[in-house]
């Protein structure tokens, strides 16, 4: 018997004591729910909003975002201008650029020119991605221009992520361009990945009008792809740094720019809206919603938990997949409440007057929506406390005449 055959037998023998799979899916659901139960403070909230804003752009990586259009190649020596993204960058020798724009995407890709000397081959990971997200100043994870450089030279202020990566976040580091503009960067943890950078400049505020704190910032994210070859990786990193150092704001991102040129895809700045509050004692809650791009960021605050810093907020970004989707669902198992209890909540569109929460083996619960009188396109709902063992089947959106106008399926899952 060869060593390979012996090895196979060894693996089989070792795994013959395999435990059963009973309850595995329930454990998965609990873990998934725990992951969603982002009990974090303000810093994490900024992260959630940032993730929400960036998440939709993840499709850029695979080019799978619906409606994304690829413009023609911009050769080396030219300048690639992305007005909607508010930046331009010179295409370096040996590389070419391609603008990519779509409903949720505004950016460009730099790829090595196959014919260029001393450039890496056209491998899938050898690409520098540039894309813009619009954030409020508070959502931007990096330093402000007026912040103390020495203080910021210390290790990063937190563990933000710049994009929805599957790997755990690494600390942010800080740097300054030759013109003094600050940026943040982090090393990505995936094998061979180069890293990613974020650089911000304020969105244009018309002359004579004070910029409110909600005035958005354009944040250019620059991601250097990956390569197993150290030389290629070094080349990619050099290219990323060159882009970070030379990218220029244009259109209304540039102070003095044309204020009439407003990006159609950029929503009006909105503030977080308190939809309502309810519950009592340790189960008291406050519901908030705000919009970023085409998503509703829904937040459920539990003041009881907020007595401890960094806890007590469950925030999630809900994607707008289509016009028929009118309700998002979030579940919270209040395990700090005696006997435990389940609360189902989520954002709804303004035309939803009530939601019907259908539970396995129980009578459905109908809840009126909150905040229909508040500004913005979204309202919300929060269920009364439900038994912890409840299994959620679906949540149905009802209009003012009790007609079903949307459904969120939850697959009969146990929430606690």
């Amino acid at each position, binding site marked *: 018997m060869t060593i390979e055959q012996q090895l196979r037998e060894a693996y089989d023998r070792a*795994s013959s004591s395999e435990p059963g799979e009973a309850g595995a899916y329930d454990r998965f659901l609990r873990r998934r729910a725990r992951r969603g139960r982002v009990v974090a403070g303000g810093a994490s909230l900024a992260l959630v909003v940032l993730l929400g804003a960036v998440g939709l752009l993840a499709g850029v990586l695979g080019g799978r975002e619906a409606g994304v259009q690829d413009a023609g190649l911009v050769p080396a020596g030219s300048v690639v201008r992305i007005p909607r993204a508010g930046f331009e960058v010179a295409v370096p020798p040996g590389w070419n650029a391609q603008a990519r724009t779509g409903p949720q995407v505004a950016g460009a890709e730099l790829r090595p020119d196959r014919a260029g000397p001393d450039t890496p081959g056209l491998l899938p990971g050898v690409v520098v991605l540039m894309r813009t997200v619009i954030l409020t100043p508070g959502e931007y994870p990096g330093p402000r221009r007026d912040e103390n450089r020495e203080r910021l030279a210390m290790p990063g202020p937190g563990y933000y992520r710049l994009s929805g990566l599957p790997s755990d976040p690494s600390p942010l580091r800080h740097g300054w361009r030759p013109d003094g503009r600050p940026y943040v960067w982090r090393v990505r943890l995936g094998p061979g990945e180069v890293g990613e950078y974020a650089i911000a400049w304020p969105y244009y505020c018309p002359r004579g009008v004070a910029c409110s704190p909600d005035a958005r910032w354009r944040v250019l994210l620059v991601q250097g792809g990956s390569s197993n070859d150290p030389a290629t990786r070094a080349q990619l990193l050099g290219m990323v740094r060159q882009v970070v150092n030379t990218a220029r704001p244009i259109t209304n991102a540039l102070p003095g720019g044309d204020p009439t040129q407003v990006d159609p895809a950029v929503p009006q700045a909105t503030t977080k809206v308190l939809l309502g509050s309810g519950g009592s004692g340790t189960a008291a809650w406050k519901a908030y919603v705000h919009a970023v791009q085409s998503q509703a960021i829904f937040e459920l605050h539990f003041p009881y938990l907020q007595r401890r810093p960094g806890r007590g907020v469950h925030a999630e970004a809900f994607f707008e997949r289509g016009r028929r989707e009118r309700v998002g669902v979030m579940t919270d198992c209040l395990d700090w409440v005696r006997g435990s209890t389940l609360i189902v909540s989520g954002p709804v569109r303004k035309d939803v007057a009530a939601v019907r929460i259908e539970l396995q083996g129980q009578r459905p619960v109908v809840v009126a929506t909150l905040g229909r009188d508040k500004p913005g396109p979204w309202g919300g709902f929060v269920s009364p406390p439900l038994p912890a063992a409840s299994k959620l089947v679906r949540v149905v959106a009802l209009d003012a005449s009790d007609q079903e106008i949307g459904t969120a399926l939850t697959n009969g899952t146990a929430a606690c």
Partner: protein
Amino acid sequence: MPEDLEFREFFAVQFARLRRLGFWLTGDWGQAEELAQEALVRTYRRWRWVRRYDRPEDYARKVLLNRHRSLLRRALVEARYRAPSRPEDAYSPEAKDDALVLWAATLKLPPRQRAVLVLRYREDLTVAAVARLLGIPDGTVKTLARRGLARLRHELTTSDPDAMHGLRERR
């Protein structure tokens, strides 16, 4: 088919496979479950995209392998996981035949060698597929496999089963 339902089917098929892969990498069923669950949660988060892949299971497998590697990288987590999660989860062979000696020896291999051997000789993947999953060149896969097998051969020919299982008392 709704995405959630589709994922549930995916889970039903893949959970056991992933957990076994986790076990072959770690030698601990508790830790294997942890790895498999984590891989599936992360796969679920990307399901909208992953479901379109020809082989979505490769994505979950890759997440598991990455997760295993990053756990090993972190000394604290490693220390936590070195001790079996529950005593009954730890596989402690009683017999001392070649297969069991070999199994114990695989757990002493460096993590990458261990992963390559599992994927090549238990999962029957090609060199190219292993390279893709681990994010390393084909040549490195071959080298790791060759070195791993050589080390196992050596263990097999020179092993003292008691010593292999750490049962020999220190003098």
